């Protein structure tokens, strides 16, 4: 499973980033709480590339480079195939960052540890970015990406 971006529909409005951040770090999808009082950090970043833009999501790669590379065993795959970070094990070496083809896995500006898209695995329903995109530029689809 992964979220893919359809660049020709993307307006570059950034709502996906906002709802992504609000879905994590215990804000429970509450945008006001996250943005009024917290330090929200989106897992996926919007890339604005000349005339077009897209949300740089995780492809949950089949033979995932980040999983192969992690020096501490902090990168894991759950039963649903979702690649996630066991944050307590992360030693901030950024080896996973160095190998992610998409530049998706990135250090958190708060903790320095790696944060990445986890397809909102801790909450019900479809990922927050997909459900809040006003122009249907994000889709949840099956499969990973071959590397």
């Amino acid at each position, binding site marked *: 499973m992964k979220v893919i*971006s*359809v*660049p*020709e529909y993307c307006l570059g409005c950034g709502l996906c980033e906002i709802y992504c951040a609000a879905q994590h770090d215990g804000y429970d999808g509450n945008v006001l709480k996250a943005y009024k009082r917290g330090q929200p950090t989106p897992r996926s*970043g919007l*890339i*604005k*590339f*000349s*005339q*077009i833009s*897209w949300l*740089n999501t995780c492809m949950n790669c089949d*033979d995932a*480079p980040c999983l*192969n*590379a992690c*020096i*501490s*065993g902090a990168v894991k795959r759950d039963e649903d195939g979702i690649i996630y970070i066991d944050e307590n*094990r992360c*030693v*901030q*070496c*950024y*080896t996973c*960052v*160095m*190998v*992610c*083809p*998409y*530049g*998706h*896995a*990135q*250090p958190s500006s708060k903790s320095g540890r790696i944060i990445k898209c986890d397809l909102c695995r801790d909450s019900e329903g479809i990922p927050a970015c997909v459900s809040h995109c006003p122009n249907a530029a994000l889709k949840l689809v099956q499969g990973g990406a071959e590397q």
Partner: protein
Amino acid sequence: MKYVIIGGCIAACGAVEGIRSKDAQGQIIIIDGEKRGAYTRPLISYFLSEPSKYSDVDYRSPDFFKDRAVETIKARVELIDRPGQLLNLDNGEQIEYDRLLIATGASPIMPPIPGADQDWVKSFYTIGDAETIDRDIEAAREVVVIGSGLIGMKAAEALFKRGLKVHLVEKESHILPRQLTPGAAVSVHRHLARQGLDIITGEEVAVIHPDHQIELKNGQKLSADLVIMAVGTRPNVELAVAAGLEVRQGVVLDDYLRTSDHKIYAAGDAAETLNVISGKQEVMALLPHAHREGYQAGRNMAGMDELDQGSIPMNSVKLLGWNICSAGVTGARDGELLSWYSKEQLLEIKVRENYLIGYIAINMPEVAGPLTNAISKKIPAAAGEWQEFVERGPSLATIPSAYWQVLRRLEANGSN
């Protein structure tokens, strides 16, 4: 099918995952000479810096082997008997195999420096080494680390964090000689020196005197309670040599990671694998490679015929708060050098005919992933795109469009 793996660390774990992705039933036996379970060597420097926080150095969860029905035998393999397809262990046991993986890793090199055989001169390679050093530094104040490769740097950093006075001696003209250009090394050197590390480059240790004086070739003397020797590693190939397998620096493999005996595979630090930039088989001795090769060898042992894609030298390390990523070739003679700096950040890229062939990124992990993959996947940019990437300020949005197209991010528009 009976799979046997010699060595029980990174490449071995990769192999178990690879075998089990294709064969849920076959018997898997790991024979490992180290007392600890499958732990991850890079974490030993974190352990040494703060033993209570980083006491868990396991690579996989405690149930990893059990869940995958893997039997582990704690013993050393003494001989590979190829005609008999069996192994002789140092505990007297004999183990038969249908498919064998050599995942024996590497060992630290101990150079013939006079005095290097004293018991206060240590290597820094196993969790056992780290535990001994942890005990020995209780009463220590000063330490000399010989060699500023990754292992030496991480050892120096850990000991520095423990409050010791650390002298780092490097015989090349700059630190991290295999990862950094002289230019990039200057800023890292300055960062570390400012925090209080004593770094001596272009100098060799001549004698380690019994009175704890370390004499350099230029006559300078350093005193130290402890010396850490970190001048490099060499692949553990003795078993392969004795078995008559083809060995150069590491065990020689074909494109399917098989040795010259097709029932025997090798992976990780013990093996030579394809460096896609040089086009040569080389020992790259890096953890991501060990896991990936182990995984690929495991799949092929389980009956797949998948070509190994090869890889490139690459490394990412954090040293006293600074992140340094480098990949590909960084040598002076190769390609055109383009660089970009800002306060505490530096990017150097090497370009040859629109292909990226190497980079060094200091404190800018945000672009490292695509750069590594542009090199390893050999994705050409349009003329001038790499120059533009640097001039406009390196970011994911200035990565050449050809790269994103190959990754199918720009598929729909085909934008240029």
